[in-house]
């Protein structure tokens, strides 16, 4: 009954047509990019050392940024989900801030605190590393723009965990840290994992903030921009195709992994 009603209702046909347009808008440019890139071009780009090292750099810096910041972000998300404290609304707002500010502006802001002339920059230099023009700077820029995705996903995940289970665990003699590690995190694991994937993917695709802090070493989005500026579309396109493909493979793999966990839990 519901199916046939759905099919015959003209309004929904209009909605479906509109949806098709949106999908087309996303898929068409990507398709044309792939179609316009010949295989020999792609093979040549694959052999290009500069391209290969930039893809590798992008992958590992975004992953490292995600893992390092997750250590602080996941417990913080738990706090946001479970406890009330003064100015909580403000704190939640601050977390979302990186999403709304332009990423080039984010880069400028980060540069202001991480450059060699600042306290933080000098302290890092003394310890033997710097931020400007290094992989640490890339990670900082990536984390800055992508951390809201992890915090929000993890917080929603913790909110969905029945608080009675945590109380039951405390009641059985478990300390709060044990409850957090053995009850809360495992039960919120899937939203956390999908937050991690989102943060990682967002970090990997970051351009503006990274460009300002570390033009070199060159991550792939910057490399694409540079090749486009210096040599034009024809040279930038194969790099873009390659990078998008690599991202898609990883993205789909991790999504499947997250889904597999869901099935295993049943």
């Amino acid at each position: 009954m519901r199916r046939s009603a759905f099919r015959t209702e003209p309004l929904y046909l209009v909605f479906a047509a509109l949806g098709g347009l949106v999908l087309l808008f996303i898929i068409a440019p990507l398709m044309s990019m792939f179609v316009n890139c010949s295989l020999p071009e792609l093979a040549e780009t694959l052999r290009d050392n500069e391209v290969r090292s930039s893809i590798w750099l992008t992958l590992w810096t975004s992953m490292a940024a995600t893992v390092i910041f997750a250590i602080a972000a996941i417990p913080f998300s738990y706090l946001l989900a479970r406890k009330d404290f003064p100015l909580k609304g403000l704190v939640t707002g601050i977390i979302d801030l990186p999403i709304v500010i332009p990423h080039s502006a984010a880069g400028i802001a980060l540069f202001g605190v991480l450059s060699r002339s600042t306290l933080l920059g000098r302290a890092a230099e003394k310890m033997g590393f710097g931020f400007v023009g290094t992989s640490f700077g890339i990670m900082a820029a990536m984390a800055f723009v992508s951390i809201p995705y992890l915090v929000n996903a993890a917080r929603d995940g913790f909110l969905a965990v029945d608080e009675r289970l945590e109380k039951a665990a405390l009641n059985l003699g478990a300390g709060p840290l044990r409850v957090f590690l053995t009850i809360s995190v495992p039960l919120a694991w899937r939203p956390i994992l999908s937050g991690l994937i989102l943060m990682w993917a967002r970090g990997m695709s970051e351009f503006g903030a990274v460009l300002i802090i570390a033009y070199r070493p060159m991550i792939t989005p910057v490399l694409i921009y540079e090749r486009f500026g210096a040599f034009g579309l024809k040279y930038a396109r194969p790099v873009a195709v390659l990078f998008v493909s690599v991202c898609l493979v990883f993205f789909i793999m991790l999504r499947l992994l997250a889904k597999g966990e869901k099935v295993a839990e049943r």
Partner: protein
Amino acid sequence: MRPSQYFVLLGASGVGKSVLLETVAGLIQPDSGRIFLGGKDITEEKIQNRKIALVFQNSTLFPHITVYDNVAYPLRCKNLKGERIRQRVIELAEEFGFTGLLKRSPQTLSGGESQRVSLARAVASEPRCLLLDEPISSLDAKVRPEMHALLRKISANGQTIVHVTHDYTEAVSLATHIAVMEGGSIAQMGTVEEVFQRPKSEFVARFVGIRNFFRGRLEESREREADTRRFTTGGLDFSVLTDSSGGNGFVCIRSEDVTISNAASRTSARNNFQGTIVDIEPVGVGVEVIVDIGTEVAALITVESVEALELHCGKKVWVSFKASAVKYIEQ
């Protein structure tokens, strides 16, 4: 209350029974008042250090780990050795009858199975006091007797238990001591007999609902089907219609089911006793007549009947009630 008691808090829903338990367990901080355990003030004590285990009406088994790991959870919190944990879990599974379920996920268990595992997990934490929040209420009537038996077994091991329920038969069946709650406070507290036989207030009397309440012994029977059996209490024999296999317990008879007559008459009532009226007291819906037949029996009759039968204190009358009006509660 004292150690090793089985204490039942009896009250209608919404009088704050669950809140009381959660406050004792530390899940809720009280606005006022103090909580003492073994003479020590534990009001500010952290939940995990109270050693008070709470079993809820709905399962709080951890859904992401197996039944085995659930029962092992409190043991791991005590940092016991792996082998010791394994022994104890298997021991508890045997005692609580779920050895075959250890590898299962809690989500695949029936209501009765979940509650047995929950109880085992609570007992594994070796609480100084075990709190039960209507642990049986959401279960099928079929599995209740075995849950009662299990709870009696836990109690027999010396475990102090506080059990909250709205079901008086459950209270009678399990409790050594009972407290009746009214409007957020305790209306009466005492042994099962004290509360049921001598309710202190109208509220308690109405809530426990039965004025005639006797401890005694039901004759043993191998019959599976319901039958009229003899119940002996304080030198009197009652005929009871029951399918219970016999043993120690209580019988109760609602005062509405007891009739009074001036002469012995042939009726369908299997229980007929002669006695003397010791009290006639008007209650809200009629008159309560107390007759001494060797023990005191209350009959609730109308004002008209009192006049028609010319009842007065000291008069000899006959008291009758049907075997089917006598309810046997195993203990």
